[in-house]
């Protein structure tokens, strides 16, 4: 379990994180989303024990991660700007990792190398960006981490490779209760993989929920009435309301039954309740059609 409590960090007077709380259950896949500059990478640098908090705590199963080498032996991290030793091949890096990560699994390393089809002795610096990501993935997964932190992991990988990557992740979660935190902008993919979501904005956690719960709590309603009338619908938490011709589009954050009952009171001619995709939840939660937010999504 990863627990971040009241984490704060300032850079040169700019407050990157303030009073941030994050909770990741063991054996779950947590999706960290937020606009650029919301503090995702800063949080991740704290989770990997690179930054020192100004205030607050970052613990893994109760133990502080900073300067904790025992814990770090079980932590796998793939950053978005990858780093390999200059002129090293996968084999060179593997021989180094083998010496410092006690849980290194040679068999898995060989299997993954074969499956991904990467050359073991060529310099990683000569690989394409996508291949480098795969190389990083192989190396990190071969250390059999109990905690996996991924920062923008799958950009630039083709769908086949992506599937392969996720399959490994998901197997380890199922098999060994590996705890995963993923930061990504690809909300569609996150939707399929994550079981809980944290939405970060300006260094604070806006929403942290189980993904299913999040989805059951918010609905998209298409409703049409036979007669035009003012209908305030004050009992409902309406995030967004739009009239398109004679049909009204409502985004409502309430339990499904409450919504249904409130609307049926008005005797609608058409009433469709649809679940929202994670993308849509993100957009509407973050404050409507803010162009800045729109632009970060695919």
């Amino acid at each position, binding site marked *: 379990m990863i627990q971040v409590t009241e984490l704060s960090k300032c850079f040169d007077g700019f407050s990157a994180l303030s009073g941030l709380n994050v909770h990741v259950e063991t*054996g*779950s*896949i947590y999706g960290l989303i937020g606009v650029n500059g919301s503090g995702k990478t800063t949080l991740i640098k704290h989770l990997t024990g690179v930054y020192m908090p100004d205030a607050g705590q970052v613990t893994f199963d109760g133990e502080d991660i900073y300067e904790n080498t025992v814990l770090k032996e079980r932590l796998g991290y793939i950053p978005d700007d990858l780093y390999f030793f200059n002129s090293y091949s996968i084999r060179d890096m593997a021989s180094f990792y083998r010496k410092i990560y006690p849980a290194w699994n040679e068999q898995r390393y060989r299997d993954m190398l074969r499956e991904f089809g990467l050359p073991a002795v060529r310099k990683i610096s000569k690989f394409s960006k996508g291949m480098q990501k795969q190389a990083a993935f192989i190396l990190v997964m071969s250390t059999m981490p109990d905690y996996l932190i991924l920062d923008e992991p799958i950009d630039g990988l083709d769908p086949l490779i992506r*599937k392969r990557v*996720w*399959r490994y992740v*998901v*197997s380890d*979660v*199922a*098999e060994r209760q590996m705890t995963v935190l993923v930061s990504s902008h690809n909300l*569609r993919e996150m939707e*399929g*993989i*994550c*079981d809980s979501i944290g939405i970060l904005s300006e260094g604070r956690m806006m929403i942290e929920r189980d993904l*299913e719960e999040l*989805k059951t709590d918010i609905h998209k309603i298409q409703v049409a009435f036979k007669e035009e009338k003012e209908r305030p619908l004050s009992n409902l938490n309406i995030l967004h309301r739009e009239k398109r011709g004679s049909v009204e589009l409502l985004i409502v954050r309430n339990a499904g039954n409450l919504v249904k009952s409130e609307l049926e009171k008005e005797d609608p001619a058409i009433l*469709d309740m*649809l*679940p929202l995709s994670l993308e849509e939840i993100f957009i509407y939660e973050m404050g409507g059609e803010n162009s800045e937010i729109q632009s970060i999504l695919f």
Partner: protein
Amino acid sequence: MFQLDVKSRKSIYEQIVDNCKELIIAGVLAPNDKLPSVRELSAMLTVNPNTIQKAYRELEQSGWIYTVSGLGCFVSESRHAPDPLQIRALLDKIEPLVRELLFLGVPAESIRQALDKMIRKGGGSR
């Protein structure tokens, strides 16, 4: 075993539950047949194992499957009393379809006949 539709509005969890139910209803999964383990299924579908876990739990709670610890999940023998809420939800799903058929001008009698056919196919009695 079955495919997931990533484009569908239905959440993955719902799809798994529904798909399992279909397979059981269709007889592809017979009573006391073992379902794939959470691990196997998650790897097969590349889906979060917790999601699968949740789905299995839901199926167990509504009586479709039962768990033997250490061995896995199995299809239930008989059906328990149906959950009224479940029934209500399913009927709610039919309603807009019926309305649409009516709107298109299909006579009510044709609709009833079609329903009868479905019931017979599903192995139920009149």
